[in-house]
């Protein structure tokens, strides 16, 4: 079972068990909305992450992906590259970030220009070593394009996977985020042994 289906399965199972647990009248009142919510969630999950780039050229994408991969690098855990951040960015450029298309085409050129400036023998950012790439990015830090690609890399790493990034939920796994549709107490380590509310005078 792949993770998409697994997630759907859990969501449906939860919703159905919730129905059984609730009073009959309540369920009767609400089940259409609940089923609609579950179906909607399922539909959204069925959106297949894009496998082709639609906006960025392969050359631009190689430069952008190389930069993203230094912003959230791959080490013993997956980074921006494994999360498919480049696909998130490509899709963003035809949806909510369509205003930023030009920023990315000029940005890829800026990356190349700064690389050549610092390392005259290297033609492309993506061909530089990780240390050289970090030096280029440090030189660009604070500039609007750096801030843009940083924001989009973070978003693409931690977004809902239906947005094309966070593949396999690698970003969520890194930060310990569980995207289950519902939880029950206790929620964390420190509320496990909570004895219940007592006014200050009655404590101990």
């Amino acid at each position, binding site marked *: 079972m792949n993770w998409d289906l697994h997630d759907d399965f859990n969501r449906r199972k939860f919703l159905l068990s*919730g129905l059984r647990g*609730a*009073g009959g009248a*309540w369920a009767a*009142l*609400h089940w259409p*909305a609940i089923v*609609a*919510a579950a*179906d*909607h*969630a399922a539909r*959204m999950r069925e959106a297949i992450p894009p496998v082709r780039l639609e906006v960025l050229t392969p050359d631009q994408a190689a430069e952008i992906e190389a930069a993203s991969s*230094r*912003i*959230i*690098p791959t*080490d013993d*855990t997956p*980074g921006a590259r494994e999360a498919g951040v480049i696909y998130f960015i490509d899709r*963003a450029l035809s949806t*909510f*970030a369509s205003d930023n298309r030009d920023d990315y085409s000029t940005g890829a050129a800026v990356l190349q220009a700064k690389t050549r400036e610092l390392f005259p023998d290297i033609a492309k950012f993506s061909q530089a070593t990780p240390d050289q790439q*970090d030096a280029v*990015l440090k030189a660009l*830090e604070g500039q609007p394009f750096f801030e843009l690609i*940083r*924001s989009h*890399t*973070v*978003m693409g*790493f*931690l*977004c*809902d996977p*239906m*947005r094309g990034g966070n593949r396999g939920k690698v*970003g*969520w796994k*890194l*930060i*310990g*985020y*569980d*995207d289950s*549709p*519902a*939880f*029950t*107490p206790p*929620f*964390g*380590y*420190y*509320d496990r042994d*909570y004895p219940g*509310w007592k*006014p*200050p005078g009655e*404590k101990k």
Partner: protein
Amino acid sequence: MNPQVTYRPSEEVDFVIVGSGAAGGVLAKGLSTAGFKVVVLEQGRWIPPSEFSHDEIKTFQESQLTNNPREQPQTFRRTPQDKAQKKLAVLYGRLVGGGSVHFTGNFWRFHEIDFIERSRRGEIAGTGFADWPLTYAEMEPYYTKVEWEVGISGLAGASPFDPPRSKPYPVPPMPVKSSGVIFERAAWKLGLHPFPAPLAILSQPYRGRAACIHCGRCEAFGCEVGAKSSTLASVIPVAQQTGRCEIRTESYVYRVETNAQGRATGVAYFDAGHKPQFQKGRAVIVSANGAETARLLLLSSSPRFPQGLANSSGVVGKYLMINGYHEVFASFDEPLDEYKSVAVTRVLHDFYEIDPRLGFYGGGGIDARLGTTPIGFAMGAVPGDVPRWGKAYKSWLESFSRTMVLASHATSLPVETNSISLDPDLKDAWGLPALCMTYKDHPDDLKTVRYLCDRALEILDAAKAPKVWAAPVQEQSFAVHLLGTCRMGNDPKTSVINADHCTHDVPNLFLCDGSSFVTSGRGQPTMTIEALAFRAADRIAAAARRGEA
């Protein structure tokens, strides 16, 4: 949405209400159940709960539930002398239910002092600090009404600072989270009085609505199960069931029209196709929020009302208050998993009134939460000693589940130059002058926030938090609490509406929302907006029966 009555715009209904949020939704319910014909004009869409999602991109980047700066750009300036720059300055709910759909659900009553603080504290130089023309005692039945009609969870008597109440909460408080336990234990050590947070979120099924499933997406998101007590989930369905109330969506009101006698005759609005329409009404109520209500009056100027409708005082749009806000972060050794369930489970009001002998005015509350989503955390919570990208940044991201926030919510003083006005140059997608916000925190407001920040640091010290970092205390340039721009008062020279929400200048034009506030409260205004709206519905209905509205 349920099947509902529809009126022709040419039909003169009893009330046209502009806005369906915290105030508009309550007024729609109050007036339609009292037997009146009501049309509510809402800018945004009717979004069914099944379309609410946990997708941060849809919520924050695509403005699913809020005003979209692409269509409705805004400008900001620090002082009236500055040239305003294009910027998203004001964020509000733009859908049926308004801001009550995406709000966090913190639901504090005002205390007695909030209504009479000017008398108690005296004048504060450089401000329009004033008493309200009503008191807590007059508001108490309406606070109780809100709690029972809308559905509020909480524990009566848990805070020694709470004002008197006539009834307990209808449902018990939400289960505590790790942030609440850490906060409660540390605050007790310091002799403070934390208590279970009152929330507009149902801990148990109530009046046919479902209880919270602890999904964790309250703040900024819509509730998929209707457990958040938005007006969309609570009172608007009741209004519809009367068969007298039409909620007309994608209807962007741009002018309140008046006749030769100076009475309101209805409102002009753009329909979904940007086509101008006119809805007739015997009376008009504007509940478009503390920014858009003022903007609409300014847009409605005429030869008779040259500086804006109902603005003979000149204070429409002025005395904007947005509440101070501040966050101190702390990470611990074990997971708190604060992304689960409601944002806040414990709060304290020990600093509701900061000792005047410290030399400044102010007060507030402190609550425990995380209050941010994965992307929001990764973008906005980075400590100063952690790089913003690279290996060390990635390693810091892993602290997400171990991090909490102490959030401070504070007073804002009413300063005349802090305002909502019409931008002289920028237009929105409908060709209307864009909204301009002018805002510079009063020095006492910043002192208040710094004071609360210090108290939060003491609490986290008592909690033995291994790592603590605070956001800078600085002047604000972004607002979600929109208060005071059409202030209530007895004197028509210094206020826009009277205590019954009727404008001093136009006898059948009423305003009710955050714009009505005289003072800011301590940072959780929605409860008071809704209590005012229930009270206004009673007053306006009575006036209409007397033939005065």
